[in-house]
């Protein structure tokens, strides 16, 4: 079963009004889709929603569907911004088109690639999916920025992401090379890390560019 794009938009608007804003329902005229749109028929037909006196309510299956729809939408936004670097309105509209492709497991892949983000670029929560819960259970933090490490945690450098060649050169000169082990010694007021037998202090700006695959601290 694949919902129409309009139907997905309705579910998203409803999720925001009913769940996030805590109203429990969404006003018909605020959804942004004409009341006579066939999408409403489609959703009531699937028993996802109920419409009573101009208010739209979720039914249990519909709530589940709304949740994953909003998740896909926000993952798409993250993808646009973090990976494709498309920002602003163009990013938002591209995300709207893209989200409809993120079903049947594609969302889980994207989510893992983005390392299970908690929020969308606008700061709204992304409801966790099965993949996020699984990652949480296994304690696998995946690839994180050096800034995400806690003091005294060790990891392996996976890659350096920077557009600035000079920055890359500086990091390489410090021995920050993929494959090397790195230990974060302190994160405030500056980041201090150790590679080999040398210690370096860098600011957040540089620490952010270093991506670490996290090794669990063995006590």
């Amino acid at each position: 079963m694949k919902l129409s794009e309009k139907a997905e938009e309705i579910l998203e608007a409803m999720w925001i009004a009913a769940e996030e804003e805590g109203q429990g329902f969404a006003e018909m005229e605020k959804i942004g889709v004409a009341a006579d749109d066939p999408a409403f028929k489609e959703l009531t037909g699937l028993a996802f929603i109920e419409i009573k006196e101009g208010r739209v309510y979720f039914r249990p299956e519909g709530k589940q569907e709304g949740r994953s729809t909003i998740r896909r939408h926000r993952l798409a936004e993250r993808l646009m911004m973090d990976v494709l670097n498309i920002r602003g309105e163009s990013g938002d509209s591209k995300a709207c088109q893209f989200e409809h492709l993120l079903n049947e497991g594609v969302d889980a892949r994207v989510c893992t690639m983005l390392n299970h983000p908690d929020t969308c670029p606008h700061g709204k929560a992304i409801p966790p999916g099965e993949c996020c819960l699984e990652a949480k259970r296994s304690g696998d933090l995946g690839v994180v920025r050096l800034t995400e490490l806690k003091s005294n945690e060790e990891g392996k450098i996976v890659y350096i992401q920077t557009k600035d060649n000079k920055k890359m050169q500086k990091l390489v000169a410090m021995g920050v090379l993929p494959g090397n082990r790195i230990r974060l010694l302190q994160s405030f007021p500056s980041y201090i890390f150790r590679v080999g037998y040398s210690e370096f202090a860098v600011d957040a700006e540089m620490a952010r560019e270093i991506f670490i695959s996290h090794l669990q601290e063995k006590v």
Partner: protein
Amino acid sequence: MSLFRKKSSCHTPLADAPCGARKVALVGNPNVGKSVLFNALTGAYVTVSNYPGTSVEVARGTAVVGGESFEIIDTPGMYSLLPITEEERVARKILLEDSPDMVIHVVDARNLERMLAMTMQLVEAGLPVILVVNIMDEAERLGIAIDIPLLAKRLGIPVIGAAVARKRGLSEIRESLSCFKRSAHTVPDYSRRLENDIAEITGLFRSRFTLSPKAVALLLLQRDQEMTDLVLEAEGEGFAAVEAKIREKIYARRESFHLDLSLERRKITEKLLDGVFRVPDKRKVTLSEKLSRWAVRPLTGVPLLFIVLYYGLYQFVGVFGAGTMVDFLEKKVFEGYFNPRITEIVKDAIPWPVLQELFVGEYGVITLGLRYAVGIIMPIVATFFLFFSVLEDSGYFPRLALLVDRLFKKIGLSGRAVIPMVLGFGCDTMATMVTRTLETVRERIIATLLLSLAIPCSAQLGVIMALLSKAPGALLIWFVCLLLIFLLVGLLAARIIPGETPLFYMELPPLRLPQLSNILTKTYSRMQWYFMEILPLFILASVLLWIGKITFFFEKMAGWTAPVMAAIGLPREAAVAFIFGFFRRDYGAAGLYDLQTKGLLNPRQLTVAAVTLTLFIPCIAQFLIIKRERGLKVALAIGFFVSFFAFGSGYLLNKLLATTGIL
């Protein structure tokens, strides 16, 4: 026997030495001991410290080994053949333009793996390399074992294990200089793809360069502007083909050429070091590391900083240097003993009162110039430089830099700027020179501005502290004013001056117990520099002041500036202190000191005068250095801004103090 043979075998004193000594360049990462080695080889002195990036200038000296003399060149630290900073550019320039007969690459034994990448670059560039694996003692203490002969065999160049600060390995290094023969060493191969790329480029070269074609090709691929210009110049019309090929390769490898290359190099070093470099399974935590943790955690680091400042700056420099020692030298030695006698002698020898004045009068060269220089300035500066050298050698400064980085970012600087800022409390002129080590032009300008405005030098600081300590509260007001102005101007400058925000990254050298001899030599050489710079100015100032006095220029000047002085609530005599201040900042403060002794200033006036004078225009020497380092335009802009700002602040402070009646 074998030892004897070994020694005698290669010393062939060169009777027919080629014209000019053979050149030896010392290169390597910052803070690996190049300067210590330079000093040991030449017996000359360059500033050595436990702080990366101290050798801004290139030092040259002569070493005599087995009857032959060598010209030794100490270069600023460089991380690789591809320069990022100004210092690295300077260092590479020597390799390119001086074409040294030998290049000693000094590396830190503990980080051999990381630093060997540059050794390979040097070898690959076809330079005659001798590798010195330094700081072996500290590496051994950590349980690291290095098979030097095996490494030498694999690299095909002389390799020497050393601890030059402990004099270990020096004789081997000397010996390797006189025995050095340029040999064809094997240059390790990169991956086939990279080697093909390189070959395609080098195939287009028609001219020869100081570096090997392979090294040149790699630098071009890394978009090294300087190298591109050199190749353009050498190849002329042929450059178009080279450029097109480079563009093509850069595009094909646009993803991450720099990283790929570094990874390939690491793979090669790993192979070279297999079985050579053995580390213990468990990392030893040394005492210095524990102490280091203390110094960098805000919770313990900030109190530690205050302890350092209190005992080092306040107790040692302020109370001992500016108090006890100045009292002794200035009051007892000069005023009690030296000045009266010399006055008598001069008065006997020179019959003309006007000329007597030149030497022993109110502004006399001896009674004022020498007294200020030796009696007041010297003890303060000496204690400050001693304090600074101890901090520098212990390795505390990089830790301080990381503590303040966040704060400094707000005023447009990075933590790196902490060195010039602290040094400024010793001598702003010297500190202005050191701002060269900062990375961006913007950062250099902001640091220069703040140094000339809100950082009082030690001599001035000493005198002002002595002056204000007599008026309770005045010292606090002065301090708060300067701190606020420092932050305010910094914040504004960070907003107004265009350019990128500096990045902060810095190696943290291990904390070390400073060596007394090194500290003393360093303090001595800084003092020497200081006096070479200031004594002539002191004498000149005395002469000018004397001319001013006999021509009644000061009275006139005081008359002209009376409205300005009145505006900030000062007696007209204070103008003299400000005129002094232009010659030397501390001179001006000392001028205030004289006024205060005469009872001409009340606490409020004293505070206002001290604040204004501290902010007021940098001394001549600093101004000249600003001009040299930053250019005339910036120097003039800073000069005008500082002057207006100083008197503006004085005016406001006076009004504020007068209306609130705090003082």
